[in-house]
């Protein structure tokens, strides 16, 4: 039965359902137990599952990431929560240099079924060091999977898929979306990896994005519709694996494409999408792909500057008008 719940509740439901289903799953991270989660995602979980399965870690991201990898090597399925993905940088050696390579380097002997999750992204006026959009940098590493849920429904369905996956999965939850409500069915359902969702249908231009910037894409699409430009908005859902086929099919229909990515432009997911679409849709495109990315600066602290630095509806509208020669 669908009911409207917050994005954070959907994450919690996914973890609780999977922990009831599979005794090998446990949650480890900072403030996840007694404090009920720094962002209240794990509220009530200590009470239900006890301190054996919901564990407060010392402030030691590299430590609990490495511990999780070791536990996964001996048959468990850890969920490692980063209070913020910005803090995962100190754990880079474990999450990038160990987790995604262990199966490969051991010739298949040590699968690492682990989920690294937590909130991330800019836009909360938290200053540059706390406002990382790690997706482009991390997605560069083979051996991991990455999901970026757009709404509460996907937050639950993608996280459940992540927990059942036999590979390291990075789930990036936008801090700005945690309180956003959405329709979520009770009980079990999965959102498969590598299947993009068309969030809005349109015939004139394809807009592709992941996670929070999709709200700006949809906002832009509404105002562009008033101008007579109908945009198709595609939510990639997972960066690895990437459903480039759905995106490419859409571009073949619309002949124009704008990619929206809240990470920095250089060597980014936006750049990768543009490159792939240029190859796959070379004969379809009536203009080159245009990217709307964060400006190439650290996230500014001042509210107005940070909003200006990130992709927003205005920038997306301008990009769509430009790419479709409607400007």
């Amino acid at each position, binding site marked *: 039965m669908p009911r409207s719940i917050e994005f954070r509740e959907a994450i919690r439901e996914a973890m609780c359902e999977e922990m009831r289903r599979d005794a090998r799953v446990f949650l480890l991270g900072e403030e996840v137990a007694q404090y009920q989660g720094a962002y209240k995602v794990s509220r009530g979980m200590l009470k239900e599952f006890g301190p054996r399965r919901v*564990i407060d870690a010392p402030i030691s991201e590299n430590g609990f990431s490495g511990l999780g990898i070791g536990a996964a*090597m001996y048959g468990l399925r850890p969920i490692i929560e980063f209070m913020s993905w910005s803090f995962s940088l100190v754990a880079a050696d474990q999450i990038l240099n160990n987790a995604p390579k262990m199966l490969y380097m051991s010739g298949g002997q040590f699968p690492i079924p682990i989920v690294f999750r937590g909130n991330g992204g800019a836009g909360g006026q938290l200053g540059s060091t706390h406002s990382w959009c790690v997706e482009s940098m991390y997605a560069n590493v083979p*051996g991991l999977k990455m999901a970026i849920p757009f709404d509460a429904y996907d937050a639950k369905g993608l996280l459940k898929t992540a927990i059942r996956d036999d590979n390291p999965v990075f789930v990036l939850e936008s801090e700005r979306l945690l309180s956003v409500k959405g329709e979520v069915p009770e009980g079990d359902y999965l959102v498969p990896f590598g299947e993009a969702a068309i969030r809005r249908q349109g015939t004139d231009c394809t807009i592709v994005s992941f996670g929070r910037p999709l709200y700006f894409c949809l906002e832009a699409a509404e105002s562009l519709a008033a101008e007579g430009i109908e945009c198709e908005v595609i939510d990639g859902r997972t960066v690895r694996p990437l459903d480039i086929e759905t995106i490419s099919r859409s571009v073949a229909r619309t002949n124009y494409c704008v990619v929206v990515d809240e990470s920095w432009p250089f060597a980014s997911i936006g750049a990768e999408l543009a490159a792939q679409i240029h190859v796959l849709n070379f004969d379809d495109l009536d203009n080159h792909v245009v990217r709307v990315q964060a400006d190439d600066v650290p996230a500014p602290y001042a509210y107005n500057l940070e909003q200006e630095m990130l992709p927003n509806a205005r920038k997306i509208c301008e990009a769509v008008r430009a790419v479709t020669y409607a400007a």
Partner: protein
Amino acid sequence: MPAKIVFHAKIESVSILDEQGNFDAKLGKDVIPDTDVVRLYEHMTICRQFDEVAFKLQRSGRMGTYPENRGQEAVSLGAVYALHPDDWLVPCYRENCGLFWRGLPMEYILLHWMGDERGNEIPRDLYMTPQAIPIGTQMLHAVGLAWAGKYRKKDSIACAFFGDGATSEGDCHEALNFAANLDLPVVFVCQNNGWAISVPTKMQCSAPTLAQRGLAYGMECVQCDGNDIFAMAKVVGEAAERARRDHRPTFIEALTYRLGDHTTADDARRYRDEAELKKWLKRDPLIRIRTYLQQRKLFDDSREKALQARAREEVAAAVKRAEEIAAPTSSDMFDWLYAEMPGELATQRATLRTSGLGQDPSQLQEQSPAPSRNP
């Protein structure tokens, strides 16, 4: 008001069989029965032969790089001897002797250093992880393995091996803290061989012992003579018992010495005092056990001769097995990246082109990359 002393510390250093051949019968009682001492000596001799052959293979271009284990054999051997067969061994790269004792076929280590990742495909029933070449990263995995063992109510513990150099890494300190805070059954064995490549231990740590690093995290710690297999077996045996019984970790600093270079890419003569090396050559763990056996008439020259012949034969056979394994095929590099083969990777595997990403597969021809001699 005078300040109160709120913490006293002491570090014990354990030695049972010293370099003069003196044996502490009280401390050494029942640690290793004589029949096992003979077997351990034989095993260590074979490992020494392995080390010498591996070094020569590298020098003759048949192996890429090799880190000599020479002089440090007793540390891992004594430790593994004292552990159960399902206790996790989490090694770095100077534990060959202990790994072989557990049952790892010698060709695995040869394959690894010959540049073939299949040397890391360690059978699961050996309860050992692949050699960790980055420094200290494996210590956290040992903590996680111990965590999983405790979580699953297994009797097994984890034993992490690392060098003095690793104790400067954050991973080491995080591992010690987690193991102590979460009451985890881990035995940390620090092989203090005096040198982190060219940096001597005294330049890495101002404290008089490395063992006391464990104290700061609230765990038992002890120093021991790492070239004394009796001392190793005793302290690891006690630490393992503490881990199994109380779920408490122990930090062991095993004092040993790297008789060789850091790896074959190094030349220790450029930075190391010859006199220091000579001093440690006399403390060679092999000489020490041989003296012990000689004194008790458990071994003689004719057995030694036969042992040397057996060592040459066994190592030569392992080299043959390793060299007979055909090189991996280029499509093998795509296997085991994921637990299942993703579609885009299957395309890359079929076409052997990274540009398979985002390409129309029908436009790509299957091809084999030509071997390149470019650096």
